């Protein structure tokens, strides 16, 4: 249940993989497209099971807890399966569209009462264009409000495959100045600004009018109602 990712009460799907690496990223675990292992110290009981089971010898246990050698870790998740206290978590789980759909509509009653719905966030959801497209299509067919959170760095197919099934695009423009953008996020914003213009045009085409809803901070967030 989320009250922060768009209108009403929402369930947010965090997709793995992001083309940017912003300095301020809230969800750094979602940048890499690969599953990643994380260790949560408060949950660890120091049993050492993980060290024993890791096939790549990527883990070690000391007084300060479990250390992960990222160079050795293959993200296989075996340690997290064996960790008795869920202190090791493999972030990034493979979902099929149908199964994820079933999970997401559980809060339907709350979406309906609040004009809420599903938000696909990330990472960058548009990277998994086909999957997100199919998911949103299925949700929309059920009358559920859909939103996509994007950094703006996506390719053309996203318009037809994703945006055509979205009620709302949360367009998170990080920085207007390309140089600064590169400094903060690791990549320039030419494509992003270009996409934004095309996004507006796409909406114009769709509705014959342009609706823009700013969140107050132009440089961080444009909200565009499709």
């Amino acid at each position, binding site marked *: *249940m989320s*009250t922060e990712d768009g209108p*009403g*009460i929402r369930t947010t799907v965090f997709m793995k993989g992001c083309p940017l690496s912003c300095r301020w990223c809230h969800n750094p675990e979602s940048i890499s497209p690969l599953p990643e292992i994380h260790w949560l110290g408060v*949950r660890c*009981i120091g*049993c050492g*099971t993980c060290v024993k089971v890791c096939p790549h010898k990527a883990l070690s246990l000391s007084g300060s807890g479990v250390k992960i050698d990222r160079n050795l870790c293959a993200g296989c998740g075996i340690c997290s399966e064996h960790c*008795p*206290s*869920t202190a090791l978590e493999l972030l990034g789980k493979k979902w099929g569209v149908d199964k994820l759909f079933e999970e997401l509509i*559980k*809060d339907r*009653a*709350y979406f*309906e*009462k*609040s*004009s*809420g719905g599903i938000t696909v966030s990330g990472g960058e959801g548009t990277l998994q264009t086909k999957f997100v497209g199919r998911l949103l299509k299925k949700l929309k067919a059920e009358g559920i409000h859909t939103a996509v959170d994007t950094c703006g760095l996506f390719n053309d197919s996203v318009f037809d495959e994703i945006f055509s099934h979205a009620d709302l695009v949360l367009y998170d423009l990080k920085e207007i100045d390309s140089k600064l953008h590169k400094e903060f996020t690791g990549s320039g914003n030419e494509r992003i600004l270009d996409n934004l213009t095309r996004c507006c045009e796409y909406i114009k085409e769709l509705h014959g009018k342009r609706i823009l809803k700013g969140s107050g901070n132009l440089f961080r967030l444009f909200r565009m109602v499709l």
Partner: protein
Amino acid sequence: MSGSSALKQEFKIREPEGLTPRIKWLRDYYFKGASRNWSNETTSWSTGTPWDAQYNELTFYIVPETYALMQTIYSSYRLSARTVDLHKDFWTWTLPERRAWFNREVMVKYLPKEILPGDLIAGGRFNIMTSHCLTEKEAKARHKLVHGRSGSRAMMKKFHDHGYGNSGATSGHLIPGHERALKLGWKGIHKELTERYNNLSDKEKKSEKGGQLRGMIIASKMPRDLAAAYADLCRTMAGREQEKSRKEELIQMGDILSRVPWEAPVTFHEAVQSLWLNHMLVMSDENYPGPGVSFGRMDQYLFPYWEYSIRKGMDREFGKEILRCFWMHANTAYDSMIRTGNQGITAGFGQLITLAGCGADGEDLSNDLTYAILEVIDEMSPILEPKPNVRLHRKTPDELLDKVVDMISGSQGAPFLLNFDERSIAGMILEGRRAGITDLINEKNAWEYAPVGCLENTMVGNDRSGTVDNNLNLLKAVELALTGGKDMNQFIDPITGKADKIKQDGPSTGDPRRFKTFEEFWRAYEIQTKYLVKKITDLYEQFESIRAEFHPTPYLSCLVKGCAEKGVDVTRGGAEISMATIEAVTYATTVDSILAVKYLVYDKKLCTMDELITALKDNWVNHNILQAMAKNKAPKYGRDDNEADDMALRVMKLWTDETWKYKTRSTGRQFRPGMLSWNYWAGDGYIMAASPDGRARGQFLSNAICPSNGADINGPTSNSNSVGKALGGKSDKSPDSFEGYLNLLPNGASHTITFNPSIMKSAEHREKFKAFLRGYIENGGTALQINILDPEMLRDAQKHPEDYRHLLVRITGYNAYFTGIGRELQDEVIARLSHSRM
């Protein structure tokens, strides 16, 4: 000291603002507590016989905290009792007549009468402990039944010591027929009783029925006589009063009291005055202040009087002032323990009022009085009684929801209890069918239901459902299934140090180490559950039959439909709807434990049954890996995980089906299921053995229908969805469904969610919170208690209790002062809070 004042600024503890001088004085005076000159402290009264006694411990068997004090309390009431001069024929009367006469005598002639400055309602002292009124022979017989070797006290203690739960024949916990008493006045009730009696044959007059009706006739004159005494007092006080407006008020009060509650009230002031006396005398009659003696839909049955008086020119604010005085009176119930302070959670009495809710066609019934009452509560908060429970349903108007959300957001954890009509009504209809009383509860009238005490749904004015009388630890069946029917740990009496031998208490279900499949384990659990339910019904029978024989409540019986008709006291099953509720405790701990056995031993084979049992016997010490897996890896109820919630439903169906199989033998009361855990989940956590869900002995059990502490990691919507599913979910096809809702617990189930204040931080968030409540109507349970509390503030309150004297928190339907509850319970409240997110 200095540290505390700095922190005080950070957390503002709410204090009422803008009270009228009258109410401010009354409220401040009330909170002076033990240093007041006036109080409603309990007084004790005797027939003067050497065998006389007052305290009826059967009522308190459900309060384990009192076990150790039972004999002391019993003796102190005996020793402090004052003797009442008896009528010359007293000992020739039947017991109901003796009790009715004795109580009336004490209330009208012996107990002092006072009216506090500015008070608009009369009826001050009502906490009394009165003589059992037994003859020597009766007293001896009772003594043997209570104190004998296999007497009620010994059996009750054994049941509790061994972790089964508790049971007792408790008073209160019903909604008297207030509406009828207002419509008829006591004059009308008295007339009806007299006619009934006169129509009896001579033989019947000499029978128990005759004695019962005579007792009720005596009781029915008590409100008249008491009101007359207060009317005299008002006039005397008016004569002495210098201040003109107060003088007029007193004259008017005198006039009112000389009419009501004998005559039917006409004005709002008369109606509220009647209601107060009628209500307060129930507590006197039962010798117990306010245990769930509830008001029902007060905003509905008082509305005609409200409307009338407003039409006749009553200032709306004056109407509210009358209500505020009424509120102050309800709080004086606590004076019974004025010298001992707030005794933890037991400080909550639960004189519950019901507000709003749907009507016959699903329409919303909230009215101006609903709002006036909510305003009064809001203005006077924080204050404990009476507690409101607001009924919500699909057609609840936004305006009401706005007011409710407003009050919740400013409540600092105080009075917010919501009841959900569709799910609740589905349960009442199920009850009608399963108890075979569809003439009394059906689709046409179930909307008239109201909650009692905290959230226990019953019908109104004709229903006693003993909603707190039986509290059963379902988890005991898991323990017995793991041991083949024996206690896992030996019971050692903490006071005497004496150890009980471990015996084959439950059915022998075999050595679980030999169970090849989970289903074999389930079958053992099933057999043990059946044993538990039968055991508690047998135990209750012992208490119920003693109460039926020795403790009639003739005054209360006048207010419960069925008693006069049958000529049977309410304690003997006189109510039209006469039920006894079993409240299952430890539900989530039980479900999670079964899920853990399945997951650890059978599905994932992470340990053998032998290893699991050894770990439990060792209280998980040196089994921390297995314990961590049980806690973290095994599925849990409360996450909207269908597999886990299916198990929850399976557990629910099993124990509720068993419950419907039993009736009390002495009084014919049908058992029905519910889930309210009061504070037992805390205390019994020290008694019950370690459980397969990873809980060690000494840790708390789960509360009512709530997921285990910390298990609801998917947030409040998932938590609520699980609760709805555990109650039966939704289905249009089932014959038991109402508007698509199913509910296996007619009594309802207590569900608490604690939110951080940030959930209300902006207007937009409040809208979302409203939507959450509307979603809860669809998916959730029967009753929801919302705590809005900041964990940091509570930690500060632990450090500086003196700054937080009035801080209320809600614990299973009970509002209690945070600083007055035990440290462990405080920690539990904080723990719940700290992990909750939205």
